[in-house]
């Protein structure tokens, strides 16, 4: 037999492992680390949601659900989206419950892309979009966004990257890792181009509730955009339900039907326990969610002020739970910075280049951490910068 490695598809081999994975291994081997490297809430799922899951298990809800997800959940999602975003979706035909937004992304890429179709991916961004496009035989085209534009996607920068093969635009706002958001005006400035070039938008709105300035606006709510937008959201961030893996995607019935077909043959359905918990979250989770968001907002201000006080330039994040300061003044690249900071001060942050090449020169600091740990981390980072001749 040839070497086992040769059996692996060249396409999969062509995808580099996530930069985060490599850094994770380093952090996991270090003692006494304060980690600002996580990408999830520091809360456990509110008790009433967990309790509802136990109750559903007690009553014997351990079976498959329909491929699309429990009808009550899809109805609650439709109510939520109409109330919060002003977009109406039919629970029967336009909503699919998935295993997190991650699955929805994968389905969308597989359903939409033909070989060499291009997916426009504003960077820095979450790590899955480009590999997701490549795994569906497409091509990811990075569209750089900049701190000087508050990490918004501008029509000018988008247009430069559009080609006749462009088919999909990913919008991920509020943004991981920058904390950038897109206002209604920012989104309106893009719709002309999107329509002109007949693009489909994958709008990953998983951080929508974590918007601290202004209101979250979905591009699906703008005129002419609903049918060409796949709106994705879930429960992980707003309701501290990362491990439950429940997300959803809403869009044109034909695309949703195609996605449901792939979902049916690969996943069958999202786990029923998570779906039951998600219903509870939508029905009764608002108070706890608001409490958590208020707390994130307090810590957002604390870390922003702290990072600036130790001499790091930092764009003010307006959403999600990350700060994305520039570390170019250190003279180190982002991986060197993170490794040295970890080794010397036992603070873990994520190198910006893990989120796309124009994330280089930055680090991602997650402020879903206790106030004590945030203050300690800032102090340690300050010591680190001083020792390396900064500030």
């Amino acid at each position: 037999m040839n070497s086992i490695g040769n059996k692996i598809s060249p396409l999969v081999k062509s995808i580099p492992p996530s930069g985060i994975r490599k850094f994770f291994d380093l952090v996991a081997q270090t003692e006494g680390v304060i980690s600002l490297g996580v990408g999830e809430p520091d809360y456990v799922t509110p008790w009433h949601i967990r309790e509802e899951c136990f109750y559903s298990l007690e009553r014997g809800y351990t079976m498959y659900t329909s491929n699309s997800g429990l009808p009550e959940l899809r109805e609650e999602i439709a109510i939520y989206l109409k109330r919060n975003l002003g977009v109406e979706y039919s629970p029967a035909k336009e909503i699919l419950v998935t295993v997190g937004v991650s699955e929805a992304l994968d389905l969308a890429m597989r359903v939409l892309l033909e070989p060499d179709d291009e997916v426009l991916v504003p960077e820095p961004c979450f790590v899955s979009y480009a590999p997701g496009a490549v795994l569906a035989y497409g091509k990811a085209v990075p569209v750089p966004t900049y701190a000087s534009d508050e990490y918004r996607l501008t029509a000018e920068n988008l247009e430069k990257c559009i080609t006749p093969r462009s088919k999909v635009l990913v919008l991920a706002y509020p943004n991981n890792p920058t904390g950038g958001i897109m206002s209604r005006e920012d989104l309106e400035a893009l719709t002309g181009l999107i329509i002109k070039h007949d693009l489909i938008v994958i709008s990953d709105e998983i951080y929508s509730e974590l918007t601290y300035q202004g209101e979250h606006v979905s591009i699906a709510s703008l005129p002419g955009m609903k049918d060409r937008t796949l709106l994705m959201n879930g429960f992980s961030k707003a309701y501290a339900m990362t491990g439950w893996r429940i997300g959803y995607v809403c869009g044109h019935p034909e695309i949703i039907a195609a996605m449901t077909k792939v979902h049916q043959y690969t996943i069958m359905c999202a786990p029923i326990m998570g779906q039951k918990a998600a219903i509870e979250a939508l029905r009764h989770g608002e108070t706890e969610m608001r409490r958590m968001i208020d707390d994130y907002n307090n810590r957002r201000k604390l870390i922003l002020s702290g990072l600036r006080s130790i001499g790091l330039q930092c764009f003010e994040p307006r959403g999600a739970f990350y700060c994305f300061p520039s570390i170019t003044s250190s003279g180190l690249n982002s991986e060197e910075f993170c490794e040295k900071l970890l080794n010397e001060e036992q603070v873990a942050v994520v190198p910006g280049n893990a989120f796309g090449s124009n994330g280089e020169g930055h680090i991602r600091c997650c402020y879903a951490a206790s106030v004590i740990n945030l203050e300690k981390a800032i102090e340690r980072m300050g010591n680190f910068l001083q020792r390396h001749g900064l500030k």
Partner: protein
Amino acid sequence: MNLENKILKLIAADAKLGNNTIATMLEVDEAVVDATIKKLEADNVILGYKTVIDWEKVGADGVTAMIDVKVSPEREVGFNRVAERICRFPEVRSVNLMSGTYDLSVVVTGETMKDISWFVSHRLSTLEQVQSTTTHFILKRYKQDDFVFEGPQEDKRLVVSP
């Protein structure tokens, strides 16, 4: 929510938050936070600062009882006069007027059960307005003032994730 309430909400959850931290979180000057807290203290809105302790861990947990007290209300002052009298005993930790089958709920601590029974029989029951008492001893504490006695749960998240 006004600034006073925002500050109170923060320090109600964590009295050790520094005024500079509060100032940063609420985007006001530290001097404003200092002054507001001083005013709230002077106005008796902030009555004091205490620590929530698991005394059992240091072998000094003593005995706590919750006593249901039926009292006769008095003309003009209702339950106030007797409640205020009960409040003055140092072993009384809290006094609340309740709806339901009794009137005052009184929490009392002592070193031994004997201390508490002596308090009930000699101090509380002998007040002329007190008609009857029912004493419930606390056997085990699970949660107090938002704190679960098992202690904080460890952070179970992966140390780095996307």
